[in-house]
């Protein structure tokens, strides 16, 4: 993990607390925050000179998703990279989904440990534990596919598709599990869960959902001639 992550996270925490995220969602102008981010230099993270490896930048994008901060910050990084933006944008969305998924999972575990029904925290109910376990599997799967896709240099078409397919498959399932465990409070507008779950759904579909991206991946395999294992080793690992 890069040394830039902690300062980037600190900056986002200051600029985009949940209240501010809500205001921006409602149409507030955030040019002041944008100017702050510009001043920080992070918008040059992918600039050709002094740029960071894509794997490090992906951790910054996950931080955006974790805080529901504007993805325009990530898009600007990509636009200033002078590299193929179409290959990086699916990775930005997958990273944002991964960050939001992390946030949603930790909120859900906290809630399960605190909310008492039938005389004990609901997290002690096996039915709830099973849902949370599966949710954790999905969250880890999203992160691992992202890490795999962002290892090495600028993502290839196959790696970009891999990250977006997996993130898009699991995003709604993660959101659904979070709401199932939260119960009615998760549905209320005042509660922050909806800031992240609504984005999980939006980011899943932006630029194409799992079917659109799986099509590209499948097309590549079907037009190749090696075994599935060799194809994966050659193009994804």
């Amino acid at each position, binding site marked *: 993990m890069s040394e830039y992550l902690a300062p980037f996270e600190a900056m986002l925490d200051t600029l985009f607390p949940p209240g501010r995220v809500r205001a921006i969602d409602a149409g507030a102008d955030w040019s002041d925050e944008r100017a702050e981010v510009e001043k920080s230099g992070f918008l040059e993270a992918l600039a050709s000179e002094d740029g960071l490896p894509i794997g490090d930048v992906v951790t910054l994008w996950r931080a955006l998703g974790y805080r529901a901060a504007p993805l325009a910050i990530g898009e600007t990084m990509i636009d200033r990279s002078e590299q193929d933006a179409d290959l990086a944008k699916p990775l930005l969305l997958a990273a944002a989904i991964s960050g939001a998924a*992390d946030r949603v*999972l*930790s909120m859900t*575990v906290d809630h*399960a*440990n605190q909310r008492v029904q039938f005389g004990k925290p609901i*997290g*002690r109910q*096996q039915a*709830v*534990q*099973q849902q*949370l*376990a*599966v949710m*954790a*599997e*999905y*969250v*880890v*799967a999203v992160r*691992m*596919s992202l*890490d*795999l896709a962002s*290892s090495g240099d600028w993502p290839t078409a196959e790696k970009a*598709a*891999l990250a977006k*397919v*997996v993130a898009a*498959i699991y995003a709604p399932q993660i959101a659904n599990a979070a709401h199932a465990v939260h119960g009615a409070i998760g549905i209320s507008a005042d509660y922050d869960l909806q800031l992240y779950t609504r984005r999980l759904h939006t980011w899943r579909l932006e630029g194409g959902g*799992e*079917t659109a*991206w*799986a*099509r*590209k*991946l*499948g*097309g*590549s*395999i*079907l*037009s190749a*001639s090696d*075994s*599935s*294992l060799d*194809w*994966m080793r050659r193009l*994804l*690992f």
Partner: protein
Amino acid sequence: MFDTLSLATIPPEDEALRPKVRTLAMEAVAGMPLDRRARSWMGFDPAFSRKLGEAGLLGLTLPTEYGGAGRGPFARFVVVEELLAAGAPVGAHWIADRQSAPLIYNYGTEAQRREYLPRICRGEALFCIGMSEPGAGSDLAAVRSRAERTGEGWRLNGQKLWTTGAQHVDYMIALVRTSGGPEGRHAGLSQLIVPLDRPGVSIRPIEDLAGDSHFNEVFFDDVDLPPDALIGEEGQGWAQVTAELAFERSGPERIYSSHVVLDAWIEHLRKVGRADDRTAAIVGGLIARLATLRAMSLACTGRLAAGESPVVEASLVKDLGTSFEQELPLAIADDLAAHPQENPDPEIVAALRYLTLVAPSFSLRGGTREILRGIIARGMGLR
């Protein structure tokens, strides 16, 4: 959460094993019908296991002084991945290589190590797992089989059940009670190495729903065993079995059980030239999930290589992996059934029929889905 699972790369020296394993695996499956290759874990071929031993591909993680290769878990990952992807018959040495050998190495005496490990590495000493009993499945601490000390060693009575390979192999490592009763739960359990040719051992194969007889009932009727049948410490059986299960759950075998039909299906699609949007989306979705599972399994291997026992991480990968293995034959069968005019090879149809029947076992063997999810939940701090 679960940041311990991070991307791991196979070291080049371990990756270099791949061509050698592949050649042997391809030889072993040449001419073998696809539904037999789909049996892979259940394929019992001691001659093939000895061939792998000769090639130095068994006991990869054991030190060379015990006949091993002195390599790490990544070497084993490469070998196992190649064997399973080909559908090679690995059943004979499977348990010994995966969990009996590390168990004996970690908990055995020097004499026990020298007695068993070199033969395991040659593919000559074959093992089975003696855990389940009629009243002890997921609740393993309920085992009732009992060994009592006699003047000359141990006398074993009781029964094991669902013991894969018992009718063919040489030894069982049995979890038994050596003190107290089932009410004592985790206390009073020990592990014993039981040579299955001893007087008093009787083994009855049980036919499974696909017509195979891989698992068995095993009865112990006053079976006399020497003092050094005890492996590890008396009364420490529960801790040992937990460590053993981490080995059982953390390998790449939990993602490749249905793999041979995936490649056969992709080959079929290429042959008939079907690459429309819908087909490509199904293929791409499956491969994306498989690649992710491979990355997760490698991450788990990385924890093993670091000397850890990644119990929670292994459970997470196994649960997601077996879900995938179970869905794969269903998705492929549905796709082929939607295109009857393509006349798929009867071999792939037979393999799909077999896998569809046995797929429920994927999330039973080595710990049920429900047990694994309980372990994951505890790992997340839910009590």
